[in-house]
């Protein structure tokens, strides 16, 4: 222990000294790897790096953990723009991927042999405007919907709601029994968006061409009844007084505690959070179930799906070939399926063909299976279908959820926000 610590100390000192002397040129056998900062992602990244080092003697992989949230977007963009990104980096697929100007900043991976085993649905979300594929999946797909506490449902004899009205009457029953019906956590503002974003299955069911028309400046949130519904839901649950008392300050961690331990019944969230629950409340993991945000009709019911983050090669890195090997390694079934299942919690289906979910998945993940197995019961979130996502959505949804602003007004302001984003992206027709 002491020995280890001294060498680490020495290494730290050496690194700093090297930085001061400006002397080190990059070792050709050192690969830099910039990854996400979620606990589970860090653990998985380090495991992949270690495995790669073991498989390629002489190669060192330096894992760098950046900041989280929107600071991350910022940092990734400025480092890509200035050619200072790590050799391999992890970043979102979909609209955020489009905003990093992938044709200039990332390496074309379309013709890599491993692409054959990647599911088409993922490839679309990491495809640049010129049709080339730029990334590999790094993680599992996620469902967006409502995490619910099963013991409360059993105790009160409730059924999984198939329509919004059923959901609201379940909430009433939960409130009457003295539990919190709907958990909201605006201490982490992004969590406020789930009612709007995870309702996209229902939007698409009502208006199949919404994404295309939205991208072309034709469809608007404020004028589409289906798209407005998400904002309206948020207003409804606040007005009915169904939220936890500290919704304004609670954080994601609080929300997960509440839904896992039965303080609250419903928490609109992405299923990656099941991994966090598994780590922090292992005994309660199977108390948490999942259902899609219900719409108007019991016949039209399905889940909105989020793609995992992608793994990309930065185009200006000095180690492009080694970096490509690393991505191929990370996309292989041995790593993407086996190692991942070993190190990281299972939160949803894999995007690498031939990967099977294990038998004993958490209850929440098992609840997602029926949506995937049936035809037409899933839709990707809008951010994977359109390059435009307005940056102010989370602030507007906080306002609606806190009763500061009516839903209709927020939807109009969001349309304005979307227009700004589209202009920035230089899209046609805006």
């Amino acid at each position, binding site marked *: 222990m002491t020995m280890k610590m001294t060498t680490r100390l020495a290494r730290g000192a050496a690194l700093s000294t090297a930085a001061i002397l400006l002397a080190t040129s990059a070792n050709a056998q050192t690969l830099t790897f910039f990854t996400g900062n979620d606990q589970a992602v860090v653990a998985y990244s380090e495991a992949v790096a270690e495995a790669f080092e073991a498989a390629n003697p002489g190669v060192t992989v330096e894992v760098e953990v950046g900041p989280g949230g929107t600071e991350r977007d910022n940092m990734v963009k400025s480092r890509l723009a200035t050619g200072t990104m790590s050799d391999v980096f992890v970043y979102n697929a979909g609209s955020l991927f489009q905003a990093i100007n992938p044709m200039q900043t990332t390496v074309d991976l379309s013709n890599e042999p491993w692409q054959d085993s990647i599911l088409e649905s993922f490839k679309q979300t990491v495809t640049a405007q010129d049709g080339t594929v730029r990334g590999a999946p790094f993680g599992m797909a996620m469902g967006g919907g409502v995490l619910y506490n099963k013991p409360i449902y059993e105790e009160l004899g409730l059924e999984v709601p198939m329509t919004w009205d059923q959901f609201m009457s379940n909430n009433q029953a939960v409130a009457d029994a003295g539990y919190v019906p709907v958990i909201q956590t605006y201490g982490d503002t992004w969590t406020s968006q789930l009612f709007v974003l995870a309702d996209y299955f229902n939007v698409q069911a009502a208006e199949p061409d919404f994404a295309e028309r939205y991208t072309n400046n034709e469809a608007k949130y404020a004028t589409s009844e289906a798209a407005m519904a998400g904002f309206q839901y948020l207003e409804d649950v606040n007005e009915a007084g169904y939220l936890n008392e500290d*919704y304004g300050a609670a954080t994601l961690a609080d929300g997960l505690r509440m839904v896992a331990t039965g303080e609250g019944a419903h928490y609109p969230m992405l299923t990656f959070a099941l991994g966090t629950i598994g780590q922090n409340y292992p005994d309660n993991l199977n108390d948490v179930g999942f259902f899609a945000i219900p719409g108007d009709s019991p016949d039209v019911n399905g889940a909105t799906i989020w793609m995992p983050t992608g793994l990309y090669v930065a185009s200006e890195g000095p180690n492009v070939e080694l970096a490509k090997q690393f991505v191929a390694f990370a996309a292989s079934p041995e790593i993407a399926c086996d190692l991942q299942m070993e190190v990281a919690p299972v939160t949803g289906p894999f995007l690498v063909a031939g990967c099977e979910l294990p038998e004993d998945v958490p209850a929440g993940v098992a609840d997602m299976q029926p949506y995937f197995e049936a035809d037409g019961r899933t839709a990707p979130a809008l951010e994977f279908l359109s390059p435009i996502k307005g940056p102010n959505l989370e*602030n507007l949804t906080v306002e609606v959820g806190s009763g500061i602003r009516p839903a209709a007004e927020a939807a109009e302001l969001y349309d304005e926000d979307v227009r700004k984003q589209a202009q*920035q992206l230089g899209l046609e027709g805006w």
Partner: protein
Amino acid sequence: MTTVALDTPKATSTPKALRKDLRYPSWFYLPAGTIYFILFLVPTVASLYFSLTRWTLFNSTFIGLENFQQFFREPFLFQSLINTVIFAVITSGAKVVLGLLLAVLLTSNIALRGFLRSVVFFPVLVSVIGVGITFTVLMHPTQGLINTSLEAIGIDGPGWLTDPRLALFSVALVDIWRGVGLATVIYMAGIVSIPQDYYEASRIDGARPIQQFFLITVPLVRPAMVTVIILSFIGGLRLFDLVWAMTRGGPGFASDVMASVIYKQYQAGFYGLSTAGNVVLFMLIACLAVPLAIFLNRREVNQ
């Protein structure tokens, strides 16, 4: 500014007054000026150009003044402008007044003086992130120490950071907590340099402590006060990190100030727009702070 080596004044005539530029050579500006010019001015001027473009970091299209129009169209800009001024006035006003009172207290003969001096300065030492984390915990509406203490004496505490009407003021309160120690130190330096004779003479004349405060202390700490006013007012107008660490401008947009609106544009990838916002913020500060500084310095000279 650094190349003004030898503009010889006519002072060479008398032997006592050596040429001023030899005694106080302008090249003293050079080391500081070089660093400042290269690392601050050059990028700033470059960014002025980008404020006229739609800029993705990867490429930029010239669009004239459109960013400025867009910036003034921002739905929450007006509110954030008002918030910025409110915030700067409240925090700098409180630092000017409380700092002076604390400095008087801490230069008088009180028990625990040394300890109190340190204690008042402690908050200056904690990083903004540390302050942000600590106070979001303390100000939590149901579990926070502040509200549980209030509850113990029968008061129903408000949602300090979650009530849209209160959030800005709560952040201002924390900013005062964090910044008043610095103001106090600047004041203390001024107060201890006031000759004790003045106080003794006035005491013999029968002046009360309160009169001494207004007739001796306040006028004579003017230079320190000017420094405190200017630094804290500009600091208040520019403040960003504390707002970001505590509320991120929320709930919604309730505690947004100019700097946080600009930062949000930057984060969202509207680089040209955020640069334009920087220019606007600079103008705002210049319009408010420069006249203030001129006014305060002029009166200082007149005295």
